[in-house]
């Protein structure tokens, strides 16, 4: 259990994980569920336990679509997507941990890809 990391995630997300009643609706609604190793309800629970590093090292943090379905549908107003984002930021803010590297971009592009996709990817996966 890493208290500093937990503190950081809680502060950064602004989420009170103790409000969770373990209903699992977030995971029931998540469109990326099958791509994730850890699911939204697990993010909330594991952050509560302080098991942040496991999450930071999981690919799951890049699978969240930030579609806010879990945020809107959570009956307890927990906002799991914000927890996922806070964990992802905890990872990519570390030196050299950018998930997207500028040099790799050109090969990902096609002529129709909107700027938006690149900008968002940068915003979400780099620091």
């Amino acid at each position, binding site marked *: 259990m890493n208290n500093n990391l937990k503190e950081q995630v809680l502060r950064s997300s602004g989420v009170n994980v103790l409000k969770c009643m373990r209903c699992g609706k977030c995971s*029931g609604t998540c469109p990326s569920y099958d791509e994730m190793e850890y699911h939204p309800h697990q993010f909330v629970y594991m952050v509560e336990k302080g098991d942040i590093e496991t999450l930071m090292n999981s690919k799951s943090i890049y699978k969240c679509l930030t579609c806010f379905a879990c945020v809107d549908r959570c009956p307890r107003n927990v906002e799991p997507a914000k927890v996922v984002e806070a964990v992802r930021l905890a990872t990519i803010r570390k030196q050299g941990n950018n998930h997207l590297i500028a040099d790799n971009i050109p090969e990902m592009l096609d002529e129709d890809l909107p700027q938006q996709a690149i900008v968002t990817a940068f915003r979400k996966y780099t620091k």
Partner: protein
Amino acid sequence: MQRIGVFVCHCGTNIAATVDVKAVAEALSHEPGVVISQEYQYMCSEAGQNLVKDAIKEYGLTGVVVCSCSPRMHENTFRKAAAAAGLNPYLVEIANIREQCSWIHKEIATATEKAVILGKAAVAKVHLNTPLTAGESPVAKRALVIGGGIAGIQTALDIAEAGFEVDIVEKEATIGGKMAQIDKTFPTLDCAACILTPKMVEASQNEKITIHSYSEVSAVKGFVGNFTATIKKKKRFVDETKCTGCGLCTEACPMKKVPNAFNLGLNNRSAIYIPFAQAVPKVATIDPNYCLKLRKGDVNDKVCGKCAEACTVGAINYHQQDEYIEQKYGAIVVATGFNPIKLDKYDEFAYNQCPDVVTSLELERLMNAAGPNGGTLLRPSDKTHPHKIVFVQCVGSRCDDSKGKPYCSKICCMYTAKHAMLIREKYPDTEVYVFYIDVRTPGKNFDEFYRRAVEQYNVHYIKGMVGKVTPKADGTIDVQASDLLSNEQLHIDADMVVLATAIEPDQTARPLATMLTTQMDTNDFFTEAHAKLRPVESATAGIFLSGACQGPKDIPETVAQASAAASKAIGLLVKDSITCNPCVAHSNELMCNGCSACEKVCPYGAITYQDKEFRMPDRTIAIRRVAGVNPAVCQGCGACTVACPSGAMDLNGFSNSQIMAEVDAICK
């Protein structure tokens, strides 16, 4: 010279853990007039009370101050103890050093300091207390029950049984309430109608009971023992005394496309209707929003009139008007019940998008023999048998999201188990899934009942919540949910989805609470006088609570509470008179100006004026107009005391000088 006794309670550690009770007793012993200051572990215990009684006798106390829990808790206890020892009960004051001191503060030094100050204020006040004698006021021997569901019916029957007149006011066209709409009951699986309708009939036949159906309480005045209620009998356009309930009119009515409210809109009825076969009173009612004639606005118009033609007894009256009845009551029982919440904000479950997503109450109607499908469970959309049904628990309950309710609706776990079981029993080829967060089954034979659903009927209970319900083009419904135990996201191709919808108090409860000056909690459930010890009384004397208006309840609990409320009401009604609150206003005639300011602000009309002869200081006789308070009518709010400019009007138990003394003691 005053001889005051101070008694400081430890309340076990409730007070003693944060307040140095010995120091409080010691500090208060030096207050003027205090002749004895003691502390004891539990002052409210018999031994504690004896301490107070003995001290009153031994020291000839003229006043008692108890530093303990809230006066709302034990003021009466200590007043009675004082009275038993021969001291006027109103010479007792309570310093609230538990709820308003030890429980909210942590630091012993400051909490003790505050407790001493609160004690000093009580001592200062008790110095000015005067012996008060309570007056008496007569009790009207009639009860009003508001709401005619199972709670109201049970309460009325019990009160009538004790020999008192009871009026039931029901806003719908029939009594019966929600229970009349329910198919079977848990955990015995009796047919609800079979056990309810005899009670409805009993109520209608009991000569002590008057049922005002299709009526509302529009005003309530007065106070315990002496309420006056105005009942509005809404125009139903049918003369209740003539109608025989034969139903010819409903057949004759050409307007047949009215959503049937009793079946929750799952089928249609005619514009003139009898809600259901066993309705009480079995009298027709015209729905003016759909009636071809009444909708026209001009009843003299020659439109339709088929029902009047069909009626053999001439009961139809298109000119009927609302009728108001005023009646005196000694006690009022609130039994306004509940409703499922609206699901507008929960469309991730597609309730508004798919007819085959229904609420549990709708399922009751779908499964009921008197329901839209005659008791065969069919999908509302295409009237086919569903083969896979998904139940979703806690829809709108246990929420903290402004859309739902923060509380557990309590009845859903059990009725869902019932539904699941009944479906599996009747249609073994149907798969039933229940998505739950927790299965809550506290109650006699409840958990056993739920286990039977799982073990005997093989209902699939899945721990997890449904996230999204998607109606598909082929008529099936994709239910996407999490299965928390197997850690996977499931997709179930269901034929029907049933939502265990949260329940909320009826909309009429809030304005009624205002009328009755009773308190409600933030969810609009009526607040009981004490959560544990007075669960069926409201804090307002003479108003009792029956059924789900006080909190979510199942039928046995509702009936139990209904009978409890009845017994409390009976306890009041058997008295010929009740002891009034002696803390009422009184006017010092020598100082009264006769200006009428007090009369204007009195909500009870307790103040009247008369011209009285007074001998003036110069020995002349003067006739002056002075105010007098009727102590049986005054409730002791004190509005008049502030309206009075000369200070002639004062309040027993909370006099100007007493409150000033408290202020001084606190601020010293």
